[in-house]
């Protein structure tokens, strides 16, 4: 007979706990969190968490108001240089 495991995880691990247990540095953990946050967003209508499968690597990290567009830093820098 299959014996299920009665688990006691009244305090589930957070991402910081997992990183600490596995010995991942704080700096690396923060970088990973930023990357994951770029991939995940909550649907405003349904409230469900949605995973973006495309383009997450090219989007800015902590500027949600830009809605995933690339920053124009390089464009403005080149404009300045051409003056």
């Amino acid at each position, binding site marked *: *007979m*299959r*014996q*299920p*495991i*009665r*688990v*006691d*995880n*009244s*305090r*589930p*691990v*957070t*991402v*910081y*706990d*997992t*990183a600490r*247990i*596995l*010995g*991942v540095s704080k700096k690396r*953990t923060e970088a*990973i*969190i930023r*990357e*994951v*946050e770029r*991939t*995940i967003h909550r649907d405003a209508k349904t409230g469900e*968490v949605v*995973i*973006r*499968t495309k383009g*997450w*690597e090219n989007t800015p990290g902590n500027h949600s108001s830009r809605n995933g567009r690339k920053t124009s830093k390089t464009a403005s820098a080149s404009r300045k240089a051409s003056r």
Partner: protein
Amino acid sequence: MAGKPAKQRRRAAKPRVREEDVFLNIPYDARFENLLLAYIAGISAFGFAPRATLEIPFGQRRLDRILSLIRQSRYSIHDLSRVQLDRKAPPTPRFNMPFELGLTVALERAAHHSWIVCETVPHRIKKSLSDLDGTDAYIHGGTVAGVFRELGNAFVGSSRQPTVTEMSRIYRLLRVHFRSVLKRAGAKDAFNARVFEELCVRASKAADALAGLND
């Protein structure tokens, strides 16, 4: 003990059992990569931290460290799917998984530890490891959805009760990030310490997001 020097006493101390650690005993095989990601996604969705011998560097004290890792994990999952001969010469079966299961069963008698066995093929374990007669395996059928289903059947009473859909979302996130993680680690497959750690942290963050935690 009182007469022993402090260094020896420290060595003799038992590692603390972590309620949140799940030791994952699976084949390190390219054909098993999807299921490794599925286990990481599923275990993280339940609010646990996956642990594996991938974290341990090869060396003289490897066996001691495997024992210590099992002893400090409150739960363990042993996947005995790979019983056939591998393709590399000389063709051999993989003994690591049943060996680590044996270590766990022996440790269970002394420590607070619970374990389950997973398999791809129903009833095969009765032939491959008949000593476990009376303990039925969780059959995932070699599929990602099967792993999620069986983890849901195995973990009872968890404070987080993720649905198969939620576990699938975490899995999808890991899949999306997988190439980038491999590239950054300079690795060819998932069976690498750094890749394993990165995937676990990503899965844990996704699980937090699904559980509605704002870190």
